[in-house]
């Protein structure tokens, strides 16, 4: 399943790159892209664990930039 989320309060370009790397490492993630310019997270991951993966991704983002939120 592939979905696009909006990222709120994504203020720094290198944070976006860090988030991308962190989410890449989550198990079940096939492809991920964090765009600082469009403030968007595009994620493709296994269907059965999708909810959990998104939750983990949100946590990873918050670790890098505490104010950053994932919105669908």
């Amino acid at each position, binding site marked *: 399943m592939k979905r696009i989320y909006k990222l709120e309060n994504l203020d720094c*370009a290198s944070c976006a*790159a860090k988030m991308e790397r962190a989410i890449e490492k989550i198990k079940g993630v096939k492809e991920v*892209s964090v*765009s600082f310019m469009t403030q968007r997270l595009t994620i493709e991951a296994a269907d059965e664990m999708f909810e959990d993966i998104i939750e983990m991704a949100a946590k990873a983002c918050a670790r890098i930039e505490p104010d950053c939120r994932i919105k669908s």
Partner: protein
Amino acid sequence: MSKRQKRNLVRILISLILFIAAVVLPAEGITRLLAFLIPYALTGYDILYSALRNIIRGQVFDENFLMSLATVGAFAIGEYPEAVAVMLFYQVGELFQDVAVGKSRKSIASLMDIRPESALVLRDGSEMELSPEEVEVGDTIIVKPGGRVPLDGLIIEGNTTINASVLTGESLPYDSGPGDRVMSGTVNLSGVIKVKVTSEYENSTVARILELVESAASKKARAERFITRFARYYTPCVVITAVLLALIPPLFFSQSLGDWLNRALIFLVVSCPCALVISVPLSFFGGIGGASREGILIKGANYLEALSKTEIVVFDKTGTLTEGSFSVAAVHPEVGTRAQLLELAATAECYSNHPIACSIVEAQGALIDKSRVGEITELSGLGVRASIDDRLVQVGNSRLMEQVGVKWQNCDEPGTIVHIAMDDEYLGHIVISDSIKPDAETAISALRRLGVSKIVMLTGDARKVGEAVGARLKTDETHCELLPDKKVAEVERLLNEKSKRGTLVFVGDGVNDAPVLARADVGIAMGALGSEAAIEAADIVLTDDRPSKIARAILLSRRTVRIVRQNIVFALSVKAAVLILGAMGAANIWLAVFADVGVTVLAIINSMRTLKKSSS
């Protein structure tokens, strides 16, 4: 500027005044320290706070941490004014960067501002305003002058002019009336029209374009990946070098600690790769946005990058270089005049809807006296037999002529030959061909001027037809009578032939060429907004069907890549120079601030050029 940005600006200005006051204040010792700490705290409290918070979370090496370390370090060695100034300039730079990124985001968003807000729907005799998503196929919508067409459909009532510039980049409006197709996203200029909706919003032209451009940012270019990889190693390396600089000379070579700490601080200030991390994606994003304004929809920065290296361009003839529709190319009478022959053929074909028949009727114009026509028999695969003015007229291919036993004349002109016979007499023939697009020749010469080394044309058409088009357009290679799978094989052969750095671009009309579009380095579908399969398979979609847009797309991609390169070279060389000078003790903290903030700002300004329209 947003509210937050304005607040930051005020904060910076107040800090600046306090900073100047501290500089001119004739204080000594602890009073002087306090005088500088006040503006420092005011400008830098959020940086210090984030730095602290990030250390607790184990996130070192981020900008906030580095800036805090550099400024605290400057305080430690007694460089109070430098400490405050670094923080101040850093904040000015951040503000500027924020404004610039926000502005470019907005200008790109405005290019994409084609999303219709609502649709005026006529249901059960009453008008209601619905969001475009709620409108169903078959509904009738009303579009008023000045309004945006919210959904794709057919005009059922009203005449108007339509401006489709947001979709095609073509600024000249065109007339439209009942029976014409209208695309969502276009603007209705003059009259009220009623439109029967033919597709749901989700599948409409406008939704497709938006989806395509919005997801383009997720496909990153090699240059972007290089920068993120580079940033991953650059910052830690510079920071570690800074630590070594601060420790080794004073400890082992009994050098002055203050001097070497100062050099280390310069390293810390320069250690942020922001200039690149922001400006490179911004350039690609701007390039894609600027291209979409001209009707060139690029599905990712990686394709933009590949397009800039185009070495071979392969065209699928029909629909790209030629119109993809038939028209009369020549009339060769054996008996009588051209006009007579054409009129006779058109009269015989006037009830047929075969594409060839239609082209003959169209060439004749509206002057067909249908009352002359008696019985008509359509002979599938052969032609048509009609009685006109009580004489038997046969119009068709050579097989039909043979069947009826008329001696026919062969023709050397490329195209489909339609023979005409009356009773047993051969009257002559008409040549029908797929006409070459008016800008096909300029398109090919423009590609050559851009340095494309090979231009190849593939076609499923007959050799005679294909080679004639190839010769006219001066392609390097022409391959005819190819079935779809042979086209893939041809493209694969060319892929092996090209150099390693160059790319192969395939241009198709999106009909039946999905496998080839996918196989090429860059697949371009022309005028393909109507075909979902083509949009899916292509990497670049041209909203109109002019082949000259391809050279334009290559030009835009090269400009974008050039700007990206300029930024990379500029930022890296300035930083390297400052690092070397800093290590030798020849740079001061001011120069370091410029290498960080100044370079970022300049790189952003340079990136913004990708958005500008260039004339050629």
